C-alpha cells in the first residue's frame, strides 16, 4: 500500500480509466442489474478516482514536481506525432480533484434525485462517461487529447440535457447545446491546426519549449498577428464551451436536463473547460495583448449582461444558469488580466458553491414535485430547513457578502486584479481600462447580490403561494441528498481558505502552489498597493450587503413592490427586456436559424433537386436514348439476322480478296 502511494504516478491512468470502466459496465449490462448495484458501480468508480486524485495532489504538493507518464504513441502521420500522455501538474491536480470530488458528491446525490427513474443505469453510465472525458481533458498532455476530452464532455452534455428525450423541448435543448458548441469547437480545431502549422507539435510542453527556444521566430509570429489569430480561435472554442457572448445561448436551455447534471456539467466542471484551457495555454495567450483585451471585454460584458437577465427570471434553475454565465465571465476577466491563479481559484470556489446551489435547487424542485417556477413557491424555509440553510450559505458565497467565505475571497481577488490592470490598445489606450472594468465587475457583483437574495426571498422567506395541502406535503427529500448538501455547504465556506490573500492575514498558498505553472520565474509574494485593496473590498462588500438586504426586504414578504414597479412605464419595459433575455434568442432565430433554413431550402430545391438530380437523371436518359437507336437492329426476325450474317461474311471475304490481290 505504501509502495502504491509512493509510486502514485504509475497509477494516474486509473483516474480517468475507472469512470470509463463504470460507464462500460453500467452502459452494457446496467439494464439487467439491480438498482443498488448500478448505484454502487456509478459511485464507487468516481470515488476511487477521487481518492487517487487526492493522492496525486498530495504527491504534487509534496515533491513540487508534475507527475508525467507517457503511454506511447497514439498515431503519427507525416510530421504529426501524437502521443498518449497524462500529466498531473499543479493546475491539473487542482482540476482533477474538483472534477472527481464534486463529481462524486453529485453522483451520490443523484441516487436520491433520480430515484424511480427507469433510465437510472443510463444516467449513471453517462455521468461516468462525462467524468472520464473531463478527466482526460484536464490530464492530457497534448492538445489533441485535450480536444478528445473537450468533445467527449460535449457529447455527454448533449446526452444528459436530452436525458428525458421523450419531451421534445428537452431533446431540442440538447440539440441546441450540441450545435452551438460545434460552432465554438470549429474555431478551436482551426486554432489547433494553426498551432501545428507554426509550432510543429501539439504537445503542450513542446509548444512552451518552442516559444523559449526560438525567440526570433516567435517575435515574427507575434508581429505578424499569427499568435493573436491562434489565441482568438482558441477563445472562440472557449466561448462555446464556457457559455460566453455570443455563444452563451445554449446554457440556459441546458437546464432541461436533470438537476444533478446542471450542477455537475453546466455549473461546476464542463463549462469551466474554457477557463482551464486558457490557463493551460497561458504562455500562448500572454503573448497577445489584443486577445487578452478581447477576452477581458467579452468576459466583463457577459458577466454584466447575464447578471441583468438573472434578476427577472422566474425559473429557479434559469436564475442559477444566468448566474453561472455571469461568474464564468468573472473567471475570464481574471484570466485576461494575467491573474491566472485567481481565475482558477474562482473556478474552484464557484464549483463548490454553484454545485451546492444547484443541488439545493434540485432538492426544492423534488420537494415541490418538479415545480420550478419560483412565483409558485414561498415559505419553504419552515418545510425544508436543511436545504434552506445550505442554499443560504451558497448564496452568501455566490454574492460574496460575508468576509472569508469562499466566494468572497475569490471574487474580491478578481476585482482587485482587474482594478490594478494597466493596459489597453487602440481606442482604449490612455483610458483607465482596469478601473472601467472594475466598475463593470462591481455592478455585476451588485446584481449578483440582488438576484441571490431575490431567489432566497421568493423561494424560502415570502409568504407561501402554494395550496395548503401541497405545502404541508413538502418535506426534505432523502438523507443522501441532505448529506451532500451539508458537505458542499461546508466546502463552500472553507473551500476558499487555501487562498486567503496576504492583506487578509493569509499567505495565499493556493497562489504560490499554482505559480509553479503560471509564473515559474518570478518570486513569490504579491506587490502591495497600500490601502487600495481594502478600499475596493470595502466598497464592493458593503454595497453588496446593501443590495442583498434590499432584495431580501423586497421579496422576503410578498414582493408587492417589484410587481407594482413592473406593471407600467419604464419598469415594465425594462422587466420585459430582461425577462425575455433582450430577445437575443429571437434575434438569433431570425439572423441565423431562419437564414440557414432558407439557404438550405435554396440548396435543396436548386442545387440538389435541380442540378445534382438533373445530372444523375440526365445520364440515365442519355443511355436510354442511345439504346433506342441501337434497338432497331434487334428486329427479332430470324431472316434479317441471317441476312446480316451473310452480308458480313461477304464483306469480310471481299476484304480478304482485295488484301490478297494487293499482295
Amino acid at each position, binding site marked *: 500500500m505504501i509502495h502504491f502511494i509512493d509510486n502514485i504516478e504509475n497509477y494516474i491512468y486509473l483516474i480517468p480509466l475507472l469512470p470509463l470502466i463504470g460507464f462500460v459496465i453500467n452502459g452494457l449490462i446496467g439494464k439487467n442489474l439491480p438498482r443498488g448495484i448500478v448505484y454502487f458501480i456509478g459511485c464507487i468508480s468516481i470515488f476511487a478516482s477521487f481518492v487517487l486524485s487526492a493522492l496525486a495532489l498530495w504527491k504534487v504538493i509534496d515533491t513540487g514536481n508534475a507527475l508525467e507518464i507517457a503511454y506511447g504513441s497514439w498515431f503519427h502521420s507525416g510530421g504529426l506525432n501524437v502521443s498518449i500522455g497524462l500529466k498531473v501538474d499543479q493546475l491539473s491536480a487542482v482540476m482533477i480533484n474538483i472534477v472527481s470530488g464534486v463529481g462524486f458528491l453529485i453522483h451520490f446525490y443523484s441516487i436520491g434525485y433520480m430515484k424511480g427513474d427507469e433510465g437510472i443505469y443510463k444516467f449513471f453510465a453517462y455521468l461516468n462517461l462525462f467524468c472520464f472525458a473531463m478527466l482526460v481533458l484536464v490530464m492530457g498532455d497534448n492538445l489533441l487529447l485535450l480536444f478528445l476530452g473537450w468533445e467527449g464532455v460535449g457529447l455527454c452534455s448533449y446526452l444528459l440535457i436530452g436525458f428525458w428525450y421523450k419531451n421534445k423541448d428537452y431533446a431540442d435543448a440538447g440539440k441546441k447545446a450540441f450545435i452551438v458548441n460545434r460552432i465554438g469547437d470549429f474555431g478551436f480545431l482551426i486554432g489547433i491546426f494553426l498551432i501545428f502549422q507554426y509550432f510543429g507539435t501539439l504537445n503542450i510542453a513542446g509548444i512552451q519549449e518552442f516559444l523559449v527556444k526560438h525567440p526570433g521566430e516567435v517575435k515574427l509570429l507575434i508581429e505578424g498577428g499569427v499568435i493573436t489569430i491562434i489565441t482568438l480561435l482558441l477563445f472562440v472554442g472557449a466561448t462555446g464551451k464556457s457559455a460566453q457572448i455570443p455563444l452563451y445561448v445554449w446554457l440556459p436551455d441546458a437546464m432541461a436536463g436533470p438537476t444533478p447534471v446542471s450542477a455537475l456539467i453546466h455549473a461546476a466542471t464542463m463549462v469551466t473547460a474554457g477557463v482551464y484551457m486558457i490557463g493551460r495555454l497561458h504562455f500562448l495567450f500572454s503573448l497577445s495583448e489584443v486577445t487578452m483585451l478581447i477576452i477581458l471585454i467579452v468576459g466583463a460584458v457577459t458577466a454584466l449582461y447575464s447578471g441583468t437577465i438573472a434578476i427577472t427570471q422566474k425559473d429557479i434553475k434559469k436564475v442559477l444558469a444566468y448566474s453561472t454565465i455571469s461568474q464564468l465571465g468573472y473567471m475570464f476577466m481574471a484570466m485576461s488580466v494575467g491573474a491566472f491563479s485567481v481565475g482558477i481559484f474562482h473556478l474552484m470556489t464557484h464549483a463548490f458553491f454553484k454545485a451546492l446551489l444547484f443541488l439545493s435547487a434540485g432538492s426544492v424542485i423534488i420537494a415541490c414535485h418538479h415545480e420550478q417556477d419560483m412565483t409558485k413557491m414561498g415559505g419553504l424555509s419552515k418545510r425544508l430547513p436543511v436545504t434552506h440553510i445550505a442554499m443560504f450559505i451558497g448564496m452568501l458565497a455566490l454574492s460574496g457578502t460575508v468576509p472569508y467565505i469562499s466566494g468572497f475571497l475569490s471574487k474580491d481577488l478578481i476585482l482587485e486584479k482587474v482594478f490594478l490592470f494597466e493596459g489597453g490598445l487602440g481606442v482604449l489606450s490612455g483610458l483607465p481600462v482596469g478601473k472601467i472594468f472594475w466598475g463593470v465587475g462591481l455592478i455585476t457583483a451588485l446584481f449578483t447580490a440582488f438576484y441571490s437574495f431575490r431567489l432566497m426571498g421568493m423561494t424560502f422567506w415570502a409568504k407561501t403561494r402554494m395550496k395548503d395541502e401541497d405545502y404541508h406535503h413538502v418535506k426534505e427529500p432523502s438523507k443522501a441528498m441532505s448529506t451532500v448538501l451539508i458537505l458542499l455547504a461546508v466546502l463552500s465556506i472553507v473551500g476558499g481558505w487555501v487562498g486567503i490573500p496576504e492583506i487578509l492575514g493569509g499567505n495565499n498558498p493556493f497562489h504560490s502552489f499554482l505559480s509553479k505553472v503560471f509564473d515559474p520565474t518570478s518570486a513569490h509574494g504579491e506587490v502591495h498597493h497600500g490601502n487600495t485593496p481594502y478600499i475596493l473590498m470595502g466598497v464592493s462588500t458593503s454595497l453588496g450587503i446593501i443590495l442583498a438586504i434590499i432584495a431580501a426586504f423586497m421579496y422576503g414578504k410578498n414582493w408587492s413592490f417589484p410587481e407594482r414597479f413592473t406593471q407600467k412605464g419604464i419598469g415594465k419595459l425594462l422587466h420585459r427586456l430582461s425577462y425575455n433575455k433582450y430577445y437575443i434568442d429571437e434575434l438569433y432565430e431570425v439572423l441565423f436559424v431562419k437564414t440557414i433554413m432558407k439557404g438550405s431550402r435554396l440548396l435543396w430545391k436548386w442545387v440538389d433537386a435541380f442540378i445534382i438530380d438533373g445530372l444523375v437523371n440526365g445520364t440515365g436518359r442519355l443511355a436510354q436514348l442511345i439504346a433506342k437507336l*441501337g*434497338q*432497331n*437492329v*434487334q*428486329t*427479332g*426476325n*430470324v*431472316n434479317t439476322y*441471317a*441476312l446480316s450474317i*451473310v452480308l458480313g461474311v461477304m464483306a469480310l471475304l471481299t476484304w480478304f480478296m482485295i488484301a490478297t490481290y494487293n499482295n
Partner: protein
Amino acid sequence: MFTLQNSIILGLILFSIGAYGVLTRRNLLVVLMSLEIMFNAVNLIVLAFNYFRFYQQGKELGHYFVLLVIAVAAAEAAVGLAILVTIYRNRRNVDSDELTEMKG
C-alpha cells in the same frame, strides 16, 4: 466435265440457292430445308477438293470430315425440327415474321 472447277461452281450454285431460301422464305420448315442445302453444298466442295487434290496420294481426311459434318447436321436438324414442332404446338404456325418476341 467432271472437273474441280465445275464441282465448285455446282457447290456455289447450291449454296446460293440455300442462302436465298434462308433469307427470303418465312416458313421455318423451308428455312431449315434451305440450311440443309447449304450444308451439302459445302460438303460437295470439300469432297471435290479432297478428290482432285489429295485422293491420288491416298489421303482420305476430307471424306471423314464430310461424314462428321453429315452426322452433326443430322443431329442439328433433329433438334431444329423438335423446336419447330414445339413452336407449332404453341402457336399454330411457323411463320418467322410472327416470331419476333426477341425484338428490342
